[in-house]
C-alpha cells in the first residue's frame, strides 16, 4: 500500500532569538513562551532558495534510508516561495538531485495546509500512474517576505524544508482526507511584496473551523477521540494550538507542540513533528493531521501506522 516510508527534515542552524526583540515589540517572556510559543525562529543562509532547502532535506533522507535516486518516479514540491516564477521549483530540485528523466515533477502552491493536500495528491497521482516511489517536499523561506517591523509576523515564522519518501514499503498510510477553502477572506493573510496577516481574523477562522473539521472527519469514519493517539496540528502559534485542543476537548498529551525552537514553518510544521514521532507510534495507531492558513485553506487527514 502506498504511504509514507520515511520523513527527513532540514532546519537551518541559524536562529534569531525573540527575546532580543522584547524591547522593540514591548513583549514579556510570558507572551513569547506561552502565547506565540516561539523562542527562536530559524533563518536560512543568505541566497539559499526553496530548492536548496529541499536538497538539504533530501541529503538528510539519504542518511536515514537507502533511497535509490534511480527509482524515484515522482517529485512534488509544496511551496509558496518558489525559486522563480518560472519554472516550477520541483524541476529545479529534479535537476539538482539528478532524478531520472521519467520522473514526474510539479509544484503545489499552498501554504500551511500544503502537506496534507500534498500527501493526498502524491498518493493519488502515484496510484493512478502505477508509480512505486516518490518524493513529497515542503519548503518555505518566510524570512525573505516577512516585514521585520511587523509584530504580527516577525516573531512567528521560521524557515524549513522536509521530504517524505512515499512508497509501497510504507509505515504510515492514509485512512481518509478532508479539505476546505474560504477564498472570500484571502486578504487576511496575503503577500504582496511583504507578508500581511490579520491576526484576529486568522485566529477566529482557525479556532472556529479546525475543531469542527476534525470532528466531522472523525464522525465520518465512525471514530471518536478515544481512537486517536495524536493530533498533529499545524503549528500556527502556541495559542492557536492550545485553543484548538481545548475546543476538541482532548488531552494535552495527545497534541504535540513543537515550534519553540524554530517557529511556524508553514507546510513543514506537520511533517517535522511526524518525522520525530514516526518510530514512536505503535502499529495500528491512528493519528490526525490538521492544517489551516493562507487561502484561507484547511485540510485534515486520518493516518494510521501500519507496521
Amino acid at each position, binding site marked *: 500500500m502506498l504511504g509514507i516510508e520515511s520523513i527527513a527534515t532540514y532546519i537551518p542552524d541559524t536562529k534569531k532569538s525573540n527575546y532580543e526583540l522584547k524591547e522593540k515589540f514591548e513583549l514579556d517572556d*510570558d*507572551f513569547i513562551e506561552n*502565547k*506565540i510559543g516561539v523562542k527562536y525562529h530559524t533563518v536560512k543562509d543568505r541566497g539559499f532558495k526553496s530548492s536548496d532547502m529541499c536538497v538539504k532535506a533530501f541529503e538528510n533522507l539519504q542518511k536515514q534510508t537507502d533511497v535509490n535516486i534511480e527509482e524515484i518516479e515522482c517529485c512534488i514540491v509544496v511551496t509558496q516561495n518558489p525559486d522563480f516564477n518560472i519554472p516550477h521549483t520541483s524541476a529545479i530540485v529534479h535537476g539538482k538531485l539528478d532524478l531520472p528523466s521519467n520522473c514526474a515533477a510539479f509544484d503545489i502552491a499552498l501554504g500551511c495546509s500544503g502537506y496534507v493536500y500534498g500527501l493526498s495528491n502524491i498518493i493519488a497521482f502515484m496510484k493512478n500512474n502505477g508509480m512505486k516511489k516518490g518524493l513529497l517536499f515542503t519548503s518555505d523561506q518566510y524570512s525573505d517576505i516577512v516585514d521585520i517591523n511587523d509584530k504580527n509576523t516577525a516573531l512567528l515564522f521560521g524557515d524549513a524544508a522536509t521530504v517524505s519518501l512515499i512508497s509501497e514499503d510504507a509505515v504510515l498510510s492514509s485512512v481518509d482526507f478532508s479539505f476546505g477553502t474560504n477564498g472570500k477572506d484571502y486578504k487576511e493573510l496575503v503577500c504582496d511584496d511583504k507578508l500581511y496577516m*490579520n*491576526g*484576529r*481574523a486568522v*485566529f*477566529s477562522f482557525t*479556532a*472556529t473551523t479546525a475543531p469542527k473539521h476534525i470532528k466531522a472527519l472523525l464522525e465520518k469514519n465512525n471514530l471518536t477521540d478515544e481512537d486517536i493517539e495524536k493530533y498533529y496540528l499545524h503549528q500556527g*502559534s502556541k*495559542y492557536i494550538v492550545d*485553543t484548538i485542543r481545548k475546543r476538541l476537548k482532548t488531552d494535552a498529551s495527545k497534541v504535540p507542540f513543537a515550534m519553540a525552537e524554530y517557529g511556524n514553518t508553514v507546510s513543514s510544521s506537520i511533517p517535522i513533528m511526524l518525522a520525530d514521532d514516526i518510530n514512536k507510534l505503535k502499529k495500528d495507531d491512528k493519528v490526525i493531521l490538521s492544517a489551516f492558513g493562507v487561502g484561507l485553506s484547511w485540510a485534515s487527514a486520518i493516518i494510521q501506522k501500519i507496521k
Partner: protein
Amino acid sequence: MKITIQDIRDIIEKAETMAEMDELANDVPLTEQNVDSLDMANILLLLEETYDVKIPDTDLDQLQSVDGIVAYLSKK
C-alpha cells in the same frame, strides 16, 4: 440585546486570560489589565459566538473595556 456586566466578565474568565478577575476594573481598557492581543482576539470570538453577532475590526475601539463591550452589545 440585554447584556450585563457579569455576562461579559464571565466571558473574559472563560477566555483564560492573565487578568486578575477580582481586580478587573470595568471602566479600564482590558489591554491595560494583563489582557494581550491574542486574549483580545479570543474574547472577541467568544462574544461573537455567544451573542451571534459579527464584530468588524472598525468597531474595535468601542470594545476596549467591560463597560464598552456591554454598551456596544446592548445596542445590537
